[in-house]
């Protein structure tokens, strides 16, 4: 029922990804990475992962939408 849950999930994680990549880029080399994440700019790296996941979800949503009219035609 309702709408495809993959869409808001995809949107939210895409936004998170963009935010973290942006923040990671802006704070690159900051002392907080040495203090916390073992010197790794984990914001930027994980931001990429989040973005990939979000876009993947959105892609699945579009795939679903394309499949549905086709499935309906088969009935």
């Amino acid at each position, binding site marked *: 029922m309702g709408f495809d849950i993959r869409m808001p999930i995809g949107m939210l994680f895409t936004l998170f990804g963009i935010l973290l990549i942006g923040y990671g880029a802006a704070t690159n080399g900051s002392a907080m990475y040495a203090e916390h994440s073992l010197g790794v700019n984990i*914001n930027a790296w994980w931001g990429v992962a989040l973005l990939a996941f979000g876009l993947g979800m959105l892609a699945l949503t579009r795939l679903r939408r394309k499949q549905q009219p086709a499935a309906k035609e088969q009935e």
Partner: protein
Amino acid sequence: MRPEPHLIDYTIILLYFAFVLGIGFVLKKYMKTSTDFFLSGRSIPAWIAGLAFLSANLGAQEVIGMGASGAKYGIATSHFYWIGAVPAMLFVGVFMMPFYYGSRARSVPEYLKLRFDEKTRGFNAISFAVMTVFSSGVSMYAMGKLLQLLLGWNFTAAILISALIVLAYTFLGGLTSAIYNEVLQFFLIVMGFIPLVYLGLRDVGGWDGLKARIANDAMVHSWKYMGNSNANPMGVEWFGMLMGLAFVLSFGYWCTDFLVVQRAMAADSMTAARRTPVIAAFPKMVFPFLVILPGMIAGVATSPRVHGMIGGKSEVAGVAAQSSFFTGGKGIIPPKYDAAGQPVTADGKVVLDYDLATPMMLVRYFPSGLLGLGLCALIASFMSGMAGNTTAFNTVWTYDIYQSYINKTASDQHYLWMGRASTVFGLGISLMAAFVAKEFNNILDVLQLVFAFVNAPLFATFMLGMFWKRTTGHGAFWGLLGGTVAAATHYGLTLPAGAVAGVKGGYLGPILHVYPSEMAQNFWTAIFAWVGCFTLTVVISLLTAPRPEQELKGLVYSLTARPEEGGLRWYQKPATLALIVVVLLLGLNLIFW
């Protein structure tokens, strides 16, 4: 060492709130009937129901509690998953869902009414309703306390805001809203904790490095030290573990607790309903790595910021320094502090605040930015626990208490209205419980004890009800009551080692047995409760008249047709999927033996 969240962290959390509310608003227009509101119109696809099934249970108490247990007991904590939850989930999916779903019961108590009688339903409905609404309150209290301790946020504000958000989206979108947000929460926890485990393991040198630092073999094996309760930190041996935790407690929870069963009941078909718990089992198997490992790492982690400034130092060749971030702490786990700010001690040893293991990990390894994501995952899991309890409560209240005893013949729209109303007062009661918990910690403990007694015998009743057609309503009711009394009695006559009589047990006077640990006492209480319930139910059933078999069609194994599986691909068959999980489970148990 209080972390300062920056704007980016608040932005992440606020974005999450916005989405959660948005989902609720969009779903409002689909809530036309009470079935839509309480059961999502039975239209949820298996993968969504499966992830929701998993997430509904994944409240912060589990995320935090498993971290705490990991810090205390090590990898043996995985038994809760690999011996407890996962087998139970497979069982309920493959064997019990046909009755829950096929009977068209709208709730677990309603199944009891269909299978047995009104008084059995009433006992289950009332005890479940009370339990679930108080559990929600306890969850709120835990969250408020944590956010206050960790970030300095105002306790009242934190729980009020989160309660209002949960209220908004469950009021508008009913169970569907709760389910969709649970799926969102699942991905948040996974995406929030993977970097934590990565950074933590990298810091301590991987699994081998972790083992070396912990320097206690019993913490890194799950079965090797289970022969003797004195050999492992949990204080249990394999039999108590297998029967108590695995069989009685886990099966009792996953097979009879409406909070999770409701998600499977919302599935869009019988096969989907059967597959729901099995689908949930796959990620559940992996969760120990996400929630237990951080706890284990916390006990041996160090932090560069104040390394060497607090606590004593001792260098053991090849192993990290033993200085703790906090005086009297262990790794980055602080001790419990009393009102004067001094570490609490018991028997001369400092009492550690293990519940802070996972939160301290987040604070230690996450810079601003990712910290927002980690906090978001924590808050999301608290909120989805609250939402799960709320949707279970409003359904049981409306169908099993209100419709059954108070107003039997109102229109469906009226029950829909009552569903919304009970969402409001359910959350209200939970909030009150949270404030009471804040003032009177012991009341909490007593309540949770009572609920444990009520839960322990449940699985015996359901098992007998579903698989033995001779079980009668009288047998079920008295068995349930008897099992609860058996639990209370066993608990009242035993004590865990080092405890004083009272909330920890032994309140009936003579102490007949002292268990090596609280956990052992809990497991054996559960075993006694189950055996008591089972025996009593069988005896009384044999002495009372059963219902005619006609009435029990579809409710009992021997009187129900096998579910139709023709035309399903192999990966769609519940039993096949379950088998794959079992094989993987055996593998995991062997690896961490």
